[in-house]
């Protein structure tokens, strides 16, 4: 069990080294001639207008909240799914009740218009 996570840890290290290697090679052998026009921000060929970090649309935040609720629900459903064979029909019905409560929350959000435009 311990060596499995050691494997994942080494995989992480290799996973960082492998993408970095071509980038280092590229930094060594590619030309390096910076000039202000090349490094200016791209906006379809014209000068940029206004701030780069534009205002954040609030609807994204609401959708992220809805995602959060359902993500936590799915994390709780993982151990439920694994224990179904040992626990029988009662556990299934309990799990379905849990899902039902959260679906009621989704229906509430839907009716209140929180799922409209992105």
């Amino acid at each position, binding site marked *: 069990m311990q060596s499995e996570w050691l*494997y994942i840890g080494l*995989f992480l290290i*290799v996973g960082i080294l*492998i993408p970095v290697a071509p*980038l280092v090679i590229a930094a060594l052998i590619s030309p390096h001639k910076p000039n202000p026009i090349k490094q200016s921000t791209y906006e379809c060929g014209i000068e940029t207008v*206004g701030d780069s970090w534009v205002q954040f649309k609030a609807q994204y935040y609401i959708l992220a909240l809805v995602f959060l609720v359902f993500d936590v629900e799915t994390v709780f459903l*993982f151990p439920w799914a694994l224990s179904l064979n040992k626990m029988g029909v009662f556990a299934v019905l309990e*799990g379905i009740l849990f899902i039902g409560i959260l679906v009621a929350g989704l229906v509430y959000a839907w009716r209140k218009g929180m799922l409209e435009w992105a």
Partner: protein
Amino acid sequence: MTFWNDPINFLSGWLSGILTAWGLPATLAMVLTIFIGIVLLVMFAMTLDIFLVWVERKVVARFQDRIGPNRIGPFGLVQPFADIIKLVIKEDITPDGADKVVFNLAPVMAAMAVILLWAILPISSKIYGVDLNVALLYLVAAGALGTMAIIMAGWASNNKYALLGMYRMVANVIAYEIPMVVILLIPTILADSMSVKSITEAQASTWYVFLSPLGLLIFMISAIAELGRSPFDLNEAESEIVAGFHIEYSGMKFGWFYASELLHAFTFGGFASVLFFGGWQVPFLLADGFHFGSLVVTLPGIVVVLVQALAFLLKALFGYWVIMWVKYSMPRIRIDQMLAFNWKFLTPLSLVLLSVTALLGQLQTVLLPWAFTLVMFVSNLLIIWITIEILRAYARRQRKQEERITAAAAQGAHQ
């Protein structure tokens, strides 16, 4: 355990033995052996990635009624190598005002998120990275690192198009994670394990595509949305926000975004094949050879392992081909249509499917295997039919509303 039965374990044991004989402590020998194995696996994934660039360009060409690269090498096979050389020798531009550390780290994280998935992908019964008992949870977690890479790239680019592209892409990815994770629970219930190796082994008798075709459909849709490929490719909506979050990237940094997207698509094709098409299972092939009823064709272990690996690669390529097929046949959908499709249709549908599968899964021990397969398949068809009926009733209602409005407008115009 000989070389002919179990090549990977035999070779790693042999290498650890040599290293300990040279005087290294046992843990260091094990770490070095594991390290070499990981490097080989990742090298295989990267070589496959290069091959996938060629496949992608040829297939998109054929879909668009042209030939694709055919000048460099036979059938254009050397084209991706030429592309890599070109990308590596390009100048490394970091736009002014960009957050240098985060900007340069984003493509590395995007590639790392995909490479991490190869740790659990079961290529064959004896060729896999590691048999985690929480493999499906690890799949979701490693996928979330890709989302981090998108956020980093979009934010650090000092470009409003990158930022907008990033917002939309992240809203897309997190939304479609819910149906995907819920569908991941279906093979978990059917196989009673989160480990991809156990799920593959549990499909020896029936592939899960026959037990849950709707699950496969929702998984493919969610996977295509997760990857950010067409028709969900708001990130690369070239007519709108010109390459979205990777607008300021050039050279090899862009190369890593592109390569990791293709490899991610192939990896999801691989996971679709593992979860629903039996992974490396070949019909009639058991651990010691083909069993056609009473006729047994024995094969050495290593041949069986290679046949299973080939079967897995073919199934994963088929999944990748379906993803490409959808990409090159359908137009892009708008962000609000995309999110409405997820929250108002896919999430409730996947939760209903999960509930029905959990209920019927209790019959797995009671019924004969073929009866259980039939019950699950028919239940999936019933859910599809009921969903279509609900959608039709909704469309009918909308049409009647529109007719009423146009009739009232026509009457109003007459007066």
